[in-house]
């Protein structure tokens, strides 16, 4: 689950700090460079959460608008990327919660792990992903925000702890609780095929 996108080196950190300060002072060219560094990361988080390109772009724009407005309060006391992840996760889960599930979980009784290109498989996989997204959206906020960083942001436990400013043990506890609830809510969808068929 290593995150390999747009992570600055220590030299990059100094440059990034300058870009952040200049953006906070209203320099849109500096902000453009920040967005250039991180837009892919934010769009990926939004797309994993929402599953639609146009919607992901809209939500990514909302994320960057929030970032631009909040930059004057950013204090460099945590990595910008972690702060950005937190803003992105909050924004996409809010957006996800506002959208009602399109697919009923009752209609998804067959587990699916196949990556085949059969149109029926593809459609079923999309439905399954949608069910997972909405199951995440239905979690209590402290579970939802934590697992969103893992599932949509692809952050490690340690990175989640830094992004949320919580101890590592709390991350483990929350992910534990979140995944237990997800298993309950997704039911047969998370049972391996042979067990689901015999159940």
């Amino acid at each position, binding site marked *: *689950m*290593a995150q390999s996108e747009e*992570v*600055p*080196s220590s030299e*990059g950190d100094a440059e990034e*700090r*300058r870009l952040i*300060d*200049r953006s*906070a*002072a*209203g*320099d*849109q060219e500096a*902000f*453009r460079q920040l*967005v*250039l*560094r991180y*837009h*892919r990361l934010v*769009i*990926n988080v*939004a*797309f*994993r*959460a929402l599953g639609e*390109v146009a919607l992901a*772009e809209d939500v990514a*724009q909302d994320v*960057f608008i929030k970032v*631009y407005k909040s930059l*004057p309060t950013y204090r*460099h006391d945590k990595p910008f990327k972690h702060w950005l992840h937190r803003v992105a996760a909050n924004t996409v889960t809010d957006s996800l919660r506002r959208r009602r599930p399109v697919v009923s979980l009752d209609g998804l009784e067959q587990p699916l792990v196949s990556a085949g290109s059969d149109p029926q498989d593809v459609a079923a996989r999309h439905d*399954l*992903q949608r069910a*997972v997204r909405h199951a995440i959206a239905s979690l209590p906020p*402290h*579970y939802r925000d934590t*697992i969103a960083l893992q*599932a949509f942001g692809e952050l*490690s*436990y*340690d990175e989640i*702890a830094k992004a949320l400013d919580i*101890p*590592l*043990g*709390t991350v*483990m*506890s929350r*992910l*534990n609780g979140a*995944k237990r609830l*997800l*298993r309950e809510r997704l039911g047969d969808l*998370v049972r*391996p095929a042979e*067990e689901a068929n015999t159940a």
Partner: protein
Amino acid sequence: MLSHATTRDWLIPYADGMLAVDERRRIDGHIAGCASCAAELREVRELNLLLVTLPPAPPIAFAPFWLNLQAVLPQRRALRMPRIQPYRRLGIAFAMAATAVLVAAGSAFAAPAALPDNPLYPVKQLEEGVRLSLAPANERLTIQLQLANERLREAQAMASNHKPRLAEDSLRAFRVVVNDAAAGLKNSADPKVAKDALHKLHLKLDAVERENASRGDDDQQVKQLVEDANDELDRIEQEDAVEAPPTLVIGEQSTPRPTPQPTARPTPRPTPSDDEHHH
């Protein structure tokens, strides 16, 4: 051997690879003899598989994304009136009350010399905003330069009074004013006047940094903001220099700025602990 209940509690961090070797061995030992926990572990892994296979977005062009974003970015709103810190809310409330009294009295007085730690400072900011918005086009640059100088006077005074956070706010606000003034400076009727104005701002920025360094605080953020502001003035001056000659140059093309390339970083693997238990 671990109990059934303890093993179930640890299955998720186990599947996520978050347990130490000895803890993993203990879980392995239990699972080998417990069909129920083994089945539960398979479900946990199935769920993990679903979570990690949510696909990334297809490639999206940056230019249109940025143009759409830029069109809806707020226009430097927070920076003309910098961060309102909690202890300044009282000041704002007081200032609003003071404004009401002043207006009622028909007075034109509105604390033009107030510093950022003065309760009347928000009144001054409001007054400046009104003054700038009502200024005719030919006076706008003059007022912007006055405001830029005023921000630096405030920054120097705050650095002198050991209030580096307020000095930082004034320096950020300075950058906003200067950015707004950049176009006016570029198109100034008298380039020498514009150049002199930029030179004076450089000198005042240096004075802010000297004050910051000499007061024992030597706040690094102030220092950095001064450096950035100097760079900004240089950039504006260079743009002036580049764009000043009115002659048409044929056959030259602009060169795009290089884009900084990010580098990858390995993901750390922490040791487990469990200091909070939610339902």
